[in-house]
């Protein structure tokens, strides 16, 4: 066995064991047929191809092939929600403090968060004109900008939005990376429209004459947005389910993490109410609840796939016996 073959076989571990035993020689043989002379390492594109193929095959083996379209739909809904919130916060940020009052701000803006919110408007617009890679790159930039806000705020000693506003936006952004490439024009226009709707909502709710609304506004807007997102995802899941399409269930499951972070005030309030009867969640409970949502939420999808594979009815058909020797596979 050559070193190149050994390396391809290592990458083949992305596939389930049974499938690898059955098709591994054939797949690696084809890679070796395609490899030029003197090649010693699989290309990055080959590694990505094997990773994607392995994931698809694991989902197929678990009878969960509708997970990928379901997560793509969740990605679109996440991008729409992130764009709505970015439009909202961008308008809020414009209401910076009066310099004469000596309240800290970030130039004419309420906080350094304005950089992240503006970064989010780029993928919302790009989705309309350049879906696919350009939009995903812009989402990545926006996610990184969101993650950097607390760091910049700490280093430069400037105000920032509350962490729960940033954490939910970060989670929405990570999911938005799964948005599909081939969407019809009306669907691609939704994130940009949502950003405008968010700005309009801010004008209506906050108005132009106030500043420093971060103190209490996220407690209202974030859980309401999370509730609407959950309701929309459930309606879509029911609609798709009526057409015998199970992808909507995966969409809801994928969205539970950002929805949980958007609703962290309510969840933490429930925890505190049960634990100590406190009317408002304390800061430590908020932090603990957010960490629990961030850890448990992403584990839901693989757990659901494992359960579907174990108890579901959608298992892939086994391969037919070998036509040459008749052996079962």
């Amino acid at each position, binding site marked *: 066995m050559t070193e190149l073959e050994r390396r391809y076989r290592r990458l083949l571990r992305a596939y389930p064991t049974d499938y690898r035993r059955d098709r591994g020689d054939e797949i690696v043989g084809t*890679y070796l047929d395609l490899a030029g002379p003197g090649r010693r390492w699989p290309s990055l594109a080959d590694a990505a191809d094997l990773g994607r193929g392995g994931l698809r095959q694991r989902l197929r083996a678990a009878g969960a092939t509708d997970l990928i379209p379901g997560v793509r739909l969740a990605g679109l809904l996440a991008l729409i929600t992130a764009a709505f919130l970015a439009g909202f916060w961008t308008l809020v940020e414009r209401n910076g403090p009066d310099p004469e009052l000596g309240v800290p701000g970030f130039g004419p803006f309420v906080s350094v968060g304005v950089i992240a919110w503006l970064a989010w408007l780029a993928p919302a617009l790009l989705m309309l004109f350049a879906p696919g890679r350009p939009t995903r790159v812009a989402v990545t930039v926006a996610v990184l900008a969101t993650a950097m806000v607390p760091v910049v705020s700490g280093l430069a000693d400037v105000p920032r939005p509350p962490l729960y506003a940033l954490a939910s936006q970060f989670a929405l952004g990570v999911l938005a990376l799964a948005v599909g490439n081939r969407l019809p024009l009306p669907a691609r226009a939704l994130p940009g429209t949502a950003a405008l709707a968010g700005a309009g909502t801010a004008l209506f709710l906050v108005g132009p004459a106030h500043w420093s609304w971060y103190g209490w506004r996220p407690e209202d807007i974030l859980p309401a947005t999370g509730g609407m997102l959950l309701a929309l995802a459930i309606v879509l899941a029911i609609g798709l389910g009526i057409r015998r399409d199970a992808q909507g269930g995966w969409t809801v499951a994928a969205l539970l993490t950002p929805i949980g972070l958007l609703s962290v005030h309510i969840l933490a309030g429930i925890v505190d109410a049960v634990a100590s009867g406190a009317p408002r969640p304390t800061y430590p409970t908020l932090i603990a609840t957010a960490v629990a949502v961030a850890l448990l939420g992403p584990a839901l999808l693989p757990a659901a796939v494992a359960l579907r594979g174990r108890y579901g009815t959608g298992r892939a058909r086994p391969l037919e016996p070998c036509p040459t020797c008749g052996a079962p596979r």
Partner: protein
Amino acid sequence: MDTPLREPTFLILTALAREPMHGYAIIGEVAALSAGRLSLRPGTLYGALDRLTDAGLVELDREETVDGRLRRYYRLSPAGDATLAAETERLRHNVEAATERLRARRVQPLAPRTAGGLA
């Protein structure tokens, strides 16, 4: 299998229409059919062959070992033959309709639109 077929699926079925082929040959044939535009990778190809096999459009034909490498040959099933024929007819109809419209456009160029539309 959903129709209309996506281009890689259509070209894989087209490649198998002439004779049974193994994975490496299918990749070469799809590249030739698409004039080099579509370059399938093995992970993608075998995933597509799995889906086509599940849908009953492709069948396993035989196995061979060449230079110590396993090669499985795949062939078009009767259902695959019918699906490819129906899809080709649909595309032919679209091409003929578009060709007809373009020909008419060149013979009789469109008059420039009047601003404000019809009175």
